[in-house]
């Protein structure tokens, strides 16, 4: 990679890169590596922050440059003051894509105005929400877009050092980003006197080590500082007092990824997409009981119904829709009556869920919503850092109650106690983990209360999922004696001769459901 000491040099290289790119793409031997996770956009989708993903080689900086890469930072350094950059980002309406939806331009303005030096930029790549892989895909397919976004932000804020904090569960993303940083440094796009200006900025990747709470900004900073990932009270906010108590701007991967195009194409262009209050587009990770799971990018304002049934191809195996879980473990479960709400920060919050970072899990009629609430609580309870009592102790108490209910030992008064506990933990917890952990419980209690009541008062799981409340029995009419169930049973609970009706021993059976899932003759009933 040639050293780009001046803007003119970059312009030259850009011209050549465009030609090389076209030539490469027109060669008959050239094959784009497709991905199961990100396919070409369907009718309702857009490709804004994902414009390069899957179309360029993330290991070749020239291909990023061919797509007008690094021209935004060049424009900024040549013709914009930091304040003008902040104005442009504000005017675009770009809201933070990590979940809180705070205006990015405003955050940058606060950091710019803060007293103290040095100032730091952090990219939160700790995408810990189960079910979310938007950031991973962007980091792996277009790392330079994130680097360039951080460069522009650093110039606006007055920072010369940045960190990308990436979760350890993403080794490929870490490798790809480290390689991209090396290339950018080699080209002089990171380091001292970038493109011949007096602006200097460098980046370092820091890895997480398996703690979900480190996605919370103050816990993340504790981790970068080499300590346990425990959050701090706010105020002071990171913009005033962040990493090593210095002014710090921290944004999500996707937020930074949007910045170069906002600079090149203008705030008006970005603000022409989306809704009145929610500009631009958002990536979502569609997963669960869908025909077409994967990564999508859609303009804000599209409805949940369009996302799930058009872009996502509807529910697998012809089953019925039950709920869509948005926003990760801090989000809520929305039933059918919310399918026509527009997807934006305010509407999802009003419906009792949150946008979160963009995870969207679709659940069919065979999902037990009490079990789902228990699943999320088990997660957040385990990931609680332990610093504050409401979260550390409160989530454990909620988990105990939910587990009892799923085990058929629910009691009168449990639901009221759950609601009280949830409200108190939300009110009193130190950080977003505790403040959000009760959300799945509250939203399932509101929309699926009848399921909780069936578990408690009838000792029945309507979705036939909770193991303590179901039994597996061979259907004698349908069983052909193929022995598939017996072979696959993990506890050897099924006996029977070939071609003869098989039998499940209820005392050994653990109700795992494997027999039912392998049977090709509908011969396993769940009662």
């Amino acid at each position: 990679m040639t050293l780009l000491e001046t803007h003119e040099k970059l312009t030259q290289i850009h011209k050549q890169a465009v030609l090389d790119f076209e030539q490469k793409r027109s060669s008959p031997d050239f094959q784009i590596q497709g991905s199961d996770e990100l396919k070409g956009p369907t009718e309702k989708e857009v490709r804004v922050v994902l414009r390069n993903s899957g179309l360029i080689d993330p290991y070749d900086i020239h291909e990023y440059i061919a797509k007008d890469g690094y021209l935004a930072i060049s424009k900024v350094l040549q013709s914009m003051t930091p304040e003008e950059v902040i104005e442009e980002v504000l005017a675009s309406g770009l809201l933070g894509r990590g979940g809180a939806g705070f205006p990015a331009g405003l955050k940058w303005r606060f950091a710019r105005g803060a007293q103290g030096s040095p100032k730091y930029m952090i990219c939160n790549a700790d995408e810990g929400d189960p079910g979310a892989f938007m950031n991973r895909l962007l980091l792996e397919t277009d790392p330079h877009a994130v680097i360039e976004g951080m460069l522009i932000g650093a110039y606006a804020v007055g920072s010369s050092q940045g960190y990308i904090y990436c979760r350890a569960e993403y080794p490929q993303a870490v490798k790809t980003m480290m390689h991209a940083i090396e290339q950018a440094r080699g080209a002089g796009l990171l380091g001292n006197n970038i493109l011949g200006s007096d602006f200097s900025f460098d980046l370092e990747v820091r890895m997480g080590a398996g703690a979900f709470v480190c996605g919370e900004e103050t816990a993340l900073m504790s981790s970068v500082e080499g300590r346990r990932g425990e959050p701090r009270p706010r105020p002071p906010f990171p913009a005033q007092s962040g990493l090593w108590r210095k002014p710090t701007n921290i944004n999500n991967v996707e937020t930074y990824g949007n910045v170069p195009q906002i600079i090149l194409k203008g705030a008006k262009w970005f603000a022409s997409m989306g809704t009145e209050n929610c500009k631009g587009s958002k990536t979502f990770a569609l997963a669960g009981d869908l025909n077409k799971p994967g990564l999508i990018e859609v303009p804000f304002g599209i409805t949940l119904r369009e996302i799930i049934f058009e872009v996502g191809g509807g529910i697998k195996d012809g089953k019925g829709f039950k709920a869509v879980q948005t926003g990760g473990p801090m989000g809520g479960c929305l039933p059918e009556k919310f399918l026509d709400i527009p997807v934006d920060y305010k509407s999802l919050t009003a419906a009792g869920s949150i946008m979160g970072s963009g995870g969207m899990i679709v659940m069919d009629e065979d999902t037990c919503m009490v079990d789902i609430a228990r699943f999320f609580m088990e997660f957040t309870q385990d990931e609680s850092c332990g610093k504050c009592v409401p979260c550390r102790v409160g989530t454990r108490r909620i988990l105990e109650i939910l587990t009892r209910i799923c085990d058929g030992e629910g009691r009168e008064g449990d639901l009221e106690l759950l609601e009280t506990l949830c409200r108190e933990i939300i009110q009193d917890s130190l950080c977003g983990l505790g403040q959000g952990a009760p959300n799945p419980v509250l939203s399932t209690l509101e929309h699926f209360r009848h399921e909780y009541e069936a578990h408690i008062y009838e000792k029945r799981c309507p979705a036939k999922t909770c193991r303590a409340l179901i039994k597996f029995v061979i259907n004698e009419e349908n069983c052909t004696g193929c022995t598939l169930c017996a072979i696959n049973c993990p506890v050897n609970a099924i006996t029977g001769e070939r071609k003869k009706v098989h039998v499940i021993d209820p005392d050994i059976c653990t109700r795992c459901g494997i027999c039912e899932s392998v049977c090709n003759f509908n011969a396993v009933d769940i009662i």
Partner: protein
Amino acid sequence: METVSTTIPNPLTIPEQKALIDSIIERNRNKPGASMVVCTELQNEIGYLSAPLQEYVASELSVPLSSIRGVVTFYSFFTATPRGRHSIKFCLGTACYVGGADQLIEKAEQVLGIRIGETTPDGAITIETCRCVGACSQAPVVAIDEELFGKQTASKMPKLLKKYQD
């Protein structure tokens, strides 16, 4: 609190391992927040952060032992005892859970004869659950060493695991 077993080898007493440990510490000692960086590299290269190693790191980085121990016990990626030669992790993210991850686990426990968190007697395999690895459209996912295997079923487990049973 785990007990310190006298049968856990101390990498500080093995010359090549000690050299590796020292080079990791040397390369990173001046970085701000070095504790996390050093522990991460040691976990990846040595495989575990035993008590003697924690003491060594604390002393080399001039931080209290409690600070290193606090970091090792806080983050789930750090372990104080060695794991098996192959690390098999079952993702329990939401999509994988909804996709039947618990069935994969039950079958694997039967095939290997150990429970989650344990290592096979021959030291070949450790099975664990892990947090969402971000491959949700391929749910349910099993991560073996650094490879991901998607769209798994209980019936696929015996064949998949056989390759790693030395």
